[in-house]
């Protein structure tokens, strides 16, 4: 890969000297998500980073804490018809329908690329049945460069709500137990906020063996054209993402962290800046996924990582882990 061109305004980039600040070089961004050790708490979000090669055209993806790839299923999937996207205030709806090349093609084509780039890879695993999740996990055994599996129990764009495993604690636990039996790396359960009590589901998947949780997936939503009366997505419903859902994501992370303080959580939902990352850490996350913001700025992970390092240095904080769960009560 060619070196970077990066012409930055020296005035805008100048260090602000604050009392109590430490040099940026003294900040160590490495974090632990349970047994998983990551070089940075800034990760990509599944479905927002394709296979990795697309963004590597802009900057080195190996600088990112972990690349969480688009969900992979046993068989290839063509996904849903267009329109698949609708912009909404401070967010967007999508209904892609888990388009992916299937685990065999992914292993043959996408994984070698990520290995070659030296990216820590988290594979998002999806399926329609417990067996499908299990089969994908089985094929991922001994896959070099894969540091964790993220079990997508919560994609909203499936044929019926019964397929959103994370809406039912028993079904969610069954999938996690099946994946856990196959996996040789930590297993994360990605849950949805579209439930009455997220703590119940979180408890069930942790008891089934989940090593950590990713909170949250997109929130089920809808948009319709006032004039034509036509839904703006071919699938009628879609997943809402972007800054619009950040408060929902923060609330979920906070609730689950309060109930299960020892369970590692990866925050996800609307984060797009270093301060967003800090907010997720404070409510209990160990790492944070940045998803929809990638669509707006292909450099967002790099920029947020640099800004986070500066933010911590200016406050004399050497590790993002110091912030985990640091909520000041009223």
């Amino acid at each position, binding site marked *: 890969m060619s070196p970077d061109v990066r012409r930055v305004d020296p*005035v*805008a980039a100048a260090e602000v000297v604050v009392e109590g600040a430490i040099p940026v070089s003294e900040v160590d961004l490495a974090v632990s998500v349970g047994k998983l050790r990551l070089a940075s708490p800034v990760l990509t979000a599944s479905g927002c980073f394709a296979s990795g090669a697309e963004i590597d*055209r802009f900057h080195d993806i190996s600088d990112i804490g972990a690349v969480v790839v688009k969900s992979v299923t046993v068989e290839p999937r063509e996904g849903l018809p267009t329109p698949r*996207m609708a912009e909404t*205030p401070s967010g967007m709806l999508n209904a892609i329908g888990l*388009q992916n090349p299937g685990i065999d093609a992914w292993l043959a084509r996408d994984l070698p690329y990520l290995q070659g780039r030296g990216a820590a890879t988290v594979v998002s695993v999806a399926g329609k049945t417990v067996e499908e999740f299990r089969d994908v996990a089985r094929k991922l055994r001994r896959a070099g460069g894969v540091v964790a599996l993220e079990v997508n129990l919560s994609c909203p764009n499936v044929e019926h709500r019964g397929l959103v495993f994370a809406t039912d604690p028993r079904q969610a636990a069954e999938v996690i137990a099946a994946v856990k039996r196959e996996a040789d790396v930590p297993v994360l359960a990605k849950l949805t906020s579209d439930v009455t009590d997220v703590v119940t589901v979180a408890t069930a998947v942790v008891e089934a063996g989940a090593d950590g949780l990713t909170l949250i997936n997109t929130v089920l939503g809808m948009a319709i054209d006032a004039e034509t009366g036509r839904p703006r997505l071919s699938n009628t419903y879609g997943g809402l993402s972007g800054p619009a859902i950040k408060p929902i994501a923060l609330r979920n992370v906070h609730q689950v962290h309060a109930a299960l303080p020892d369970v590692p959580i990866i925050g996800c939902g609307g984060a797009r800046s270093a301060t967003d990352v800090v907010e997720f850490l404070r409510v209990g996350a160990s790492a944070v996924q940045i998803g929809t913001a990638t669509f707006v700025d292909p450099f967002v992970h790099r920029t947020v990582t640099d800004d986070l390092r500066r933010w911590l240095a200016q406050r004399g904080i050497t590790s993002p882990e110091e912030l985990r769960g640091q909520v000041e009560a009223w």
Partner: protein
Amino acid sequence: MSGAKVRVGQVMGRSDPSLPVKAVCEVLARRRQGAYWMLSISAPEIADRAEPGQFVNVAVEARGALLRRPFSIARVSKQGPFAGTLDVAFDAHGPGTEWLTTLEPHDVLDVVGPLGNPFPLPKRKVPCLLVGGGYGTAPLFFLADRLVRDGQRVDLIVGAASQARLLDVIEAKRSSASVTFTTEDGSYGERGRVTDVLEEVANRCGSGVVYACGPNPMLRAVSEKCVELELPVQVAVEEHMACGVGVCWTCVVPIRAKDGAVRMKRSCIDGPVFNGAKVAWEESRYRSGPAVPDEEPDEDEAPGRLTDADVWGEA
């Protein structure tokens, strides 16, 4: 996104000239063009790397608007007094594009580009017919300039609903050997659609290849007409896209591969230029497109029709 103030001249990206960059650019001019708007921006790194058919993705600051807006590149100036500038044409039909109409010279724009695959250029001398609909004509001006520079004959068909929606009539005349205008209301040029005149123009100009850009129903009609006339056709599609860089999978187009199977390809990174004969127009939402004129095929086929392999060197 970053706390740092955005200043003109910031560029981020790889030094490889085949790859896109992100640049903070200065607006040079904004002007009305019939029913549309034209923006000229100073973006040296992007202009240098741009090829006809590629697009830029522009951040907008309209209230509540999150995503960038994609625009095909209408022209770049790589040399001369306006070196390093590029033009985009757009229709103000939403809060993002409305915001763009309020920009003044010296305002700053955050632009990612050039994105997407350019129009493939003929590997041999062949008269080229360029067919544009509405503001979709924009990238064809850039393409026409390139083809003319390469010594190709360029003929244009420019169509729209009405005269005001024909993009830049003067520019169309300047950049081509001949231009045929069509309007659906007959307010300028021939009354009708571009496909009503396509066969006659192609025969008159001896066209060997067709390039088209415009609304998808028009691209479907043009592609089907070209298949019937056995003319190689390349189309630049317009699909709703969230990211423009290949990661969101929203802008897919059904493409029929050699094995006959239809696959959903991303128009931002696998396109926006596709072989019009390979787009599975009947799939998905294209089913609702307009009926294609059902004319008898020309019986005495012009000699020496070029195949895709002749023109693009495909296997």
